[in-house]
């Protein structure tokens, strides 16, 4: 190995290996660095770092791209796709709310469970779709749950519809929990949604604080900024939890542990 490559390796093995391990896993990262070091023996130092960066980008581009697309996609869904039918159906929503007042169990499922599910899935679905692909069970489960839950908000919400889709949503979760094939994807999806769902109490507290205390407008803006930062933190946390749990629960065990044919 040339002296230049050797010194480069000794000075920065830990950060470079840690970064590779972050986008793959420690075993794979060590082997990749070993291969690049071996290949760099007949090349120069620039080749080593160029190959390293290219490998890093090739292996790790999906997570940041998925995160950005999920944020953009969620904003688009909220502002364009949902705002129109929501305003159109406001009259029906009023009826739905009155119905929910009379039947508290429906209010519990409809206005809390399903709304939280939809809110979290608006972020989680684009993220897992780009990060893991459409063929992945996690993506398929997120897609199914969103499709089951979404009609509550975008279709004319008669009392029958409310009950029906609430039952469908709960049934879908129950079935996923019971089937071993879907249980782990459901756990990963639920854990991904937790940080996003946890933002809602913060939001309602903020709203209550603003409206009941009549605070000046400039403070409202600062609180709003804090809310936006907290929201971004929640999304970042959700993405990290999703990728981490996916590796722990859904990815196949290391090949060295499997039986060789």
């Amino acid at each position, binding site marked *: 190995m040339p002296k230049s490559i050797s010194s480069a390796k000794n000075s920065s093995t830990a950060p470079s290996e840690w970064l590779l391990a972050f986008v*793959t896993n420690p075993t794979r990262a060590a082997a990749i*660095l*070993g291969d690049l070091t*071996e290949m760099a023996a007949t090349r120069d130092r620039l080749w080593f770092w160029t*190959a390293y960066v290219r*490998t890093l980008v090739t292996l790790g581009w999906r997570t940041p791209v998925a995160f950005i697309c999920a944020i953009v996609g969620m904003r688009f869904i909220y502002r364009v796709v949902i705002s129109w039918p929501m305003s159109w159906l406001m009259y029906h929503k009023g009826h739905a709310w009155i119905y929910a007042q009379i039947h508290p169990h429906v209010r519990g499922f409809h206005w809390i469970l399903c709304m939280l599910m939809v809110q979290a899935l608006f972020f989680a679905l684009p993220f897992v779709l780009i990060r893991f692909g459409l063929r992945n069970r996690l993506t398929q489960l997120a897609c199914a749950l969103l499709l089951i839950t979404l009609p509550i908000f975008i279709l004319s919400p008669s009392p029958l519809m409310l009950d029906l889709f609430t039952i469908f949503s709960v049934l879908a979760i129950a079935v996923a929990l019971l089937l071993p094939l879907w249980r782990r994807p459901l756990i990963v999806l639920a854990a991904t949604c937790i940080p996003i769902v946890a933002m809602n109490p913060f939001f309602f507290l903020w709203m209550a604080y603003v409206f009941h205390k009549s605070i000046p407008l400039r403070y409202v803006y600062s609180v709003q900024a804090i809310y936006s930062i907290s929201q971004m933190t929640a999304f970042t946390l959700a993405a990290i939890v999703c990728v981490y749990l996916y590796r722990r629960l859904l990815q196949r065990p290391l090949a060295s542990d499997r039986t060789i044919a």
Partner: protein
Amino acid sequence: MNPERTLGEFEQIVLLAVLRLGDRAYGVTILDEIAAKTGRNPAPGALYTTLHRMEDKGLVTFRDGSPTPERGGHAKRFVIVTREGRNALASAQSAYQSLLQGLDLLVTPTRRVPHVSILRHGFAGCFTGATNA
């Protein structure tokens, strides 16, 4: 065919290279073998992405070697094609073979119909590379 077991072109190249190398197949040797046999120089990242994807699909498995100084103390990870990998490769190759049947694409033009060349150009035409095209 199971959609998860369908192989892309580069996946087939990698699997064939691994099978050719036998128990010497790891990142560096696979890249060298592909370069030597196909004339391509794939980026290391492309190879690792493909290998990791095939590992997740269960098409290949890995065996850890011992750390060596020329690799900066990192161990080699030797690639082994699993039974599923061999089946997927055989299936993909048989599909290619079925499509190739009757096309004679792998036969060189001078060897394909030498009698036509002889008729058109005489025996000298066969040796000067003249074809019936």
